[in-house]
């Protein structure tokens, strides 16, 4: 044993190789270098990598994190990190490809453009990912203070509501000194933590039905109220801020988690009915909702105005075809005018689909499907209800968000502005999604602290145990 190894051992650190992760990261690196070469060669007119400093920095960072995982000997999922790394790498490539002057910001006295800025956000996101994966060894701080988390989240949103700045028709951005961010991104994680904590504690009661409204059986109302209230407040603020994408995301995640926790399809039916009613009410109340729906049904009714973005996107898919035009050969801008507004944020999927074609777009969806598979697997093998629900919720947040925005870009559902997780340009989005993947990794670690014994009343706990085994018997046990 070398002396370095002895120092590690005496500090309680036992390195553990992660060969599968290493192999997958190698493929990620190879793919990204190929992509970078394709872009640079097209631009320069001769084969070569061009100035690959950004890519080299990114790849070095990936392997540094891999080494950190190995040295600390974490027994975490080995697929999730390479998948996230592939997504963030594709993001870096796309930002390098898009017109650099879409965003300009100076950080620490240096004026940075689109791709370098995105690299800064990706790096920070990866730092948060690695930190939460390595240092989160217990989930007590999440499960114990669920109401405090919920209150903090709502408070944050209220701050935006009062002091936020309007970007793109929605009041989203909060500026605090030199920092600015979009708290609705953070709120989605806080909401999942709260819902997981609340549902894990009360799932036995919620799974039983004692209140009947007509033909629909509902759980005891007092148990549903705190959750509905929290969720309603969040949703109302989001709607008033006109952040429809976030509202849709919160609603779907809430419904899915409720179903996962209780296994009652009637909740889903009830929720979807509420969705239809709520949608109709919003459609009647807010003109911007009407706009979104009308453009979705017939974008050509206003081709130079409201329908411009989505029509341009459709042209882009047409140009891309099955194999794509190749990186660099698409038309995200004509002269100096971007042909699709918000190409680097909301419409980044279109930028990818144009230059990498339908095959590339399908590969991207495949990567999200992988995240879903790993996340649900982590949930299925979790030690207790809270961790299972938390893992489910975190996975859903990423996957549903991707589905909403890809669907919107493809004109499958009405377009609502929201970022494509781990791909879109943006600091808040990168940091929060980095934290989500990091938490999922921490949850998948088989070496973490065992969950605390339930501090719940005995009756409820006994019911909960039965609910896990024989969910059908719970109704009898309560009545």
């Amino acid at each position, binding site marked *: 044993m070398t002396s370095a190894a002895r120092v590690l051992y005496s500090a309680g650190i036992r390195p553990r190789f992660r060969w599968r992760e290493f192999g997958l990261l190698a493929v990620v690196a190879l793919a990204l270098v*190929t992509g970078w070469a*394709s872009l640079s*060669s097209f631009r320069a007119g001769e*084969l070569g990598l061009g100035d690959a400093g950004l890519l080299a920095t990114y790849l070095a960072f990936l392997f540094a994190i891999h080494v950190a995982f190995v040295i600390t000997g974490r027994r975490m999922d080995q697929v999730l990190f390479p998948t996230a790394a*592939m997504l963030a790498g594709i993001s870096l490539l796309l930002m390098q490809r898009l017109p650099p002057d879409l965003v300009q910001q100076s950080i620490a006295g240096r004026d940075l453009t689109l791709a370098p800025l995105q690299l800064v956000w990706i790096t920070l996101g990866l730092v948060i990912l690695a930190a939460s994966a390595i240092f989160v060894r217990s989930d007590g701080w999440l499960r114990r203070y669920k109401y405090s988390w919920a209150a903090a989240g709502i408070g944050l949103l209220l701050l935006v509501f009062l002091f936020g700045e309007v970007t793109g028709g929605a009041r989203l951005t909060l500026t605090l000194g030199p920092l600015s961010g979009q708290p609705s991104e953070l709120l989605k994680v806080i909401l999942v933590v709260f819902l997981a904590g609340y549902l894990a504690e009360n799932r036995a009661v919620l799974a039983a039905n004692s209140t009947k409204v007509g033909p629909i059986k509902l759980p005891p109302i007092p148990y549903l109220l705190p959750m509905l209230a929290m969720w309603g407040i969040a949703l109302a603020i989001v709607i008033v801020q006109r952040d429809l994408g976030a509202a849709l995301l919160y609603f779907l995640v809430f419904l899915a988690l409720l179903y996962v926790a209780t296994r009652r399809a009637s909740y889903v039916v009830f929720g979807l009915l509420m969705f239809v009613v709520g949608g109709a009410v919003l459609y009647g109340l807010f003109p911007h909702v009407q706009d979104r729906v009308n453009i979705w049904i017939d974008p050509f009714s206003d081709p130079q105005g409201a329908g411009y973005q989505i029509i341009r996107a459709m042209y882009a898919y047409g140009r891309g075809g099955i194999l794509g035009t*190749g990186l660099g050969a698409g038309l995200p801008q004509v002269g100096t005018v971007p042909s699709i507004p918000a190409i680097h944020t909301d419409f980044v999927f279109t930028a990818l689909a144009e230059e990498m074609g339908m095959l590339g777009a399908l*590969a991207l969806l495949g*990567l999200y499907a992988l995240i879903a598979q790993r996340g649900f697997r982590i949930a299925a093998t979790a030690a207790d209800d809270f961790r299972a629900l938390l893992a489910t919720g975190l996975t859903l947040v990423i996957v549903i968000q991707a589905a909403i925005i890809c669907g919107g870009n493809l004109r499958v559902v009405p377009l609502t502005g929201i970022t494509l997780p781990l791909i879109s340009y943006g600091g808040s989005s990168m940091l929060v999604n980095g934290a989500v993947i990091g938490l999922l990794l921490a949850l998948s670690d088989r070496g973490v602290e065992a969950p605390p014994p339930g501090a719940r009343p005995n009756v409820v706990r006994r019911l909960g145990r039965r609910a896990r085994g024989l969910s059908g018997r719970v109704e009898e046990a309560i009545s």
Partner: protein
Amino acid sequence: MDVFTLSLWLLRIGFVVLIYVFLFMVARALWHDLRAGVSGAGRPLGRLVVIAAQEGRPAAGTSLQLDAINSIGRDVNNSIVIDDTFVSADHAMLTFRGRAWYIEDRGSTNGTYLNGQRVDGLLPLGYGDELQIGQVRLRLERPRPE
């Protein structure tokens, strides 16, 4: 078509193909995981590999197949018998409960150690963890793939 256009086209397609290679590698790994999970019933759940034994019994490198419940000790009635002077008659219990392995000391004289720490009560352990029972060091490993 000149060489440059061809290479550019190859790079372009190569990028997308490599993403699919990544997806394929993961899918294959998942498939193996699933198959191992399905066919895993009735097969050994894991094995203990002897890393080192002071008195040479059992010999280093020996692999001991594990069932769901394994009693470890010097007494011949244990499912895993370790004939070492420092091992008690009924030394420890290694069990597979649901999805994880647990080790428990059965009041042995010299104690059971998990990764160098004395086992007190019921402790979870994973594949790759190291046990010390008497003067014998053992490592918990996955069952050998067939």
